[in-house]
């Protein structure tokens, strides 16, 4: 890329900062509680998300991983019955502050969903969607560049470059998921949330996406929900274990997988869990 866009400048800065320290807190959850109607799904979760690191959320089904993830970019706002308590900050700013704009927040904290959900539009339009609505490109040429870069970063460019005008729904499942990642990247978010991004994919596609996540860490902060212990071990630097709506423990991935503090974590990662 010989054109220095604002974004690549950003990336450079990010990389710099990453080199200096990977212990900067990007997002922080402080006693986060969530209710769905009368049912409480999260109980006072304190969790930090560190900049330029991959944080994995693990835990048995229904323990509130997705719920916590969705709090981080306020996707829970779209569920009528959901109410969120406690405090969540992004760059030290309360994201549930009335002054904060959800649209702006979600442009900074992007999301990739469990099931690939490309829009029923062309591959190009899928990726261009975010930049278009946020007005990130001044003209078609700039937009083209953003699309190309995003697809490259999502490791989809080679497969898709000749079929940019074909519908995104015509791609394979793994390609669709990478398309969704490209779509998220195209907005240049600071944080990317991924909810079981590989659960619908075969092992080869999974490997590709995992590889991709590792590369993306350089420029983005990533939070990923996964059911695969191996995946958590492979891609994440830090791991948080949830159980029944509580955060059981959180720590460096190496330590969590070799020497967890909590018995429940031990049981879960060794597969001895109900």
């Amino acid at each position, binding site marked *: 890329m010989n054109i220095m866009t604002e974004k690549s400048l950003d990336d450079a800065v990010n990389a710099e900062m990453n080199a200096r320290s990977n212990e900067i807190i990007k997002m922080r959850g402080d006693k986060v509680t969530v209710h769905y109607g009368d049912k409480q799904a999260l109980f006072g979760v304190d969790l930090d998300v560190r900049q330029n690191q991959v944080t994995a959320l693990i835990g048995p089904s229904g323990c509130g991983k997705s719920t916590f993830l969705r709090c981080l*970019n306020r*996707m829970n706002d*779209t569920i*009528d019955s959901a109410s969120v308590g406690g405090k969540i900050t992004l760059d030290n700013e309360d994201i549930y502050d009335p002054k904060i704009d*959800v*649209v*702006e*927040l*979600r*442009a*900074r904290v*992007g*999301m990739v*969903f469990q*099931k690939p*959900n*490309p*829009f*029923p*539009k062309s591959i190009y339009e899928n990726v261009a*969607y*975010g930049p278009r*609505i*946020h007005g990130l490109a001044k003209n078609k040429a700039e937009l083209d560049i953003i699309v190309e870069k995003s697809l490259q970063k999502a490791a989809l460019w080679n497969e898709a470059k000749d079929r940019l005008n074909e519908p995104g729904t015509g791609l394979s499942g793994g390609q669709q998921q990478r398309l*969704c990642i490209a*779509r*998220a990247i195209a*907005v240049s978010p600071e944080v990317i949330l991924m909810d079981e991004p590989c659960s619908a994919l075969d092992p080869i596609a999974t490997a590709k996406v995992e590889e991709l996540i590792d590369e993306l860490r350089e420029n983005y902060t990533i939070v990923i929900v996964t059911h695969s212990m191996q995946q958590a071990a492979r891609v994440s630097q830090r791991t948080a274990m949830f159980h029944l709506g509580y955060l059981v423990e959180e720590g460096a991935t190496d330590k969590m997988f070799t020497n967890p503090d909590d018995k429940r974590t031990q049981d879960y990662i060794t597969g001895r869990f109900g």
Partner: protein
Amino acid sequence: MSFLLVFAIVLAIGLAAFVAGRQRARAQDDGTVKPHSRAHYHGWWAFLTGVVPAVLFLAAWDIGASAYLNSHIHSALPADVADGTVAQEDLAAGLVKSLASGLRKLDSQTLSALPSSFAELQPMLAAKGVALAPDTQDYMIPIATEANRVSDRLGMISAVVSVGLALIGVGFGLRGISPRARARNNVEKVMLWSLLGASTLAILTTIGIVLSMLFQTIAFFEKVPLSNFFFGTVWDPRFAAAGAGASEGQFGLIPLLAGTLYIAFVALLVAVPIGLMSAVYMSEYAAPKVRAVVKPALELLAGIPTIVYGIFALVTLGPFLRDISAALTGGTPFIQAQSILTAGLVMGVMLIPVVSSLSDDIITAVPRAMRDGSLGLGATRSETIKRVILPAALPGIVGAILLTASRAIGETMIVVLAAGVAANLTLNPFEAMTTITVKIVNQLTGDLEFNTPQTLVAFALGITLFALTLVMNIVALYIVRKYREQYE
């Protein structure tokens, strides 16, 4: 013996068979063999073997008998009447029939010494409360008496045969009762066949629609060339001169079709944006409380019969628009009280709930993942709707609009009351145009004279309308179905 009486007797035999069959099955159950079916199934089976063949025979015989009687009366009419027009012959036959049914009210004593002139007969009948048309002729009296005799004989035969069939059937049913007899399976088989029969009624209705209109349409095109109808630009059917052959008239479809499409277009112009926007608002924005109130209100709008809309257009909106336009020009109104605008507007409002409920279904069928995907990228709700949901729903919405258009084209009462009857060809929405449906109503109300092109043309119009809407419906249903499958 009357149809109903025989029917009642057959039913009574059946019920008796039911009781007997159940009894017999119970008596046979001595506990040694496990019965296949419970006792009442045996009863029902005996009932069915008795009643079904007898009733089928009875119905078929009755239809055949009335046709036979009809031709009998026609053939007995004197030559000069039979040589007249079809209408005259039908009229005479009708008089004979009502005379015949009137005669049935008289007692046998009077019947045996029946006067031969209608003038003498009439007071006798009037005393029994039978009023007959004064142009009943003397020659009809013997024909009517004979017809009654024939129909009595036919009725007798049918009664004997049906009752006989019922008894034989019952005997067969009762004899077959044994503990291992599969009475339940038999009964259920009959039920299944009747269920199947009920579901084919939809096909029969369609066939009935097509055939009935087709025959009349063919009769129409024997009198009026195809091209005059399909390419004619003048609609001026004239009146059917009573009895006279086809009087000259012009049956151009073009002005009616143009009016139909124009009014439907205006209606869609009103209904589609408003209906679509309300559906979007209701499904994407409205708080549950608002929805709970507004949705039934919109459904109410859909439940109002179209005649009410038509009358509103005729009595209130039409005159209102005319007066407004008169006030604007300070004298002559440029909007007529019956106009394309009035009819289109009111029909449009009538269609709002149609569009909105159809598109509501379509919009809610767009998977939540689409919405989340867009919102998760930081799109606002309206951006999500405009750029993701509506494009994704587009095929379905097109289908919904087609269905609505088909409703608009086939709508009758609003245009009958609000659009006018003059078959103009105009582009000015403030003038009156007429539609296919209006003309169908016009041609078929009042005194009918079948077999004149003036009446038959209504069927040609009807089949055109049916074909038009059929194509639209099928395309629309196909699109919507494909659309739904895509997201299932």
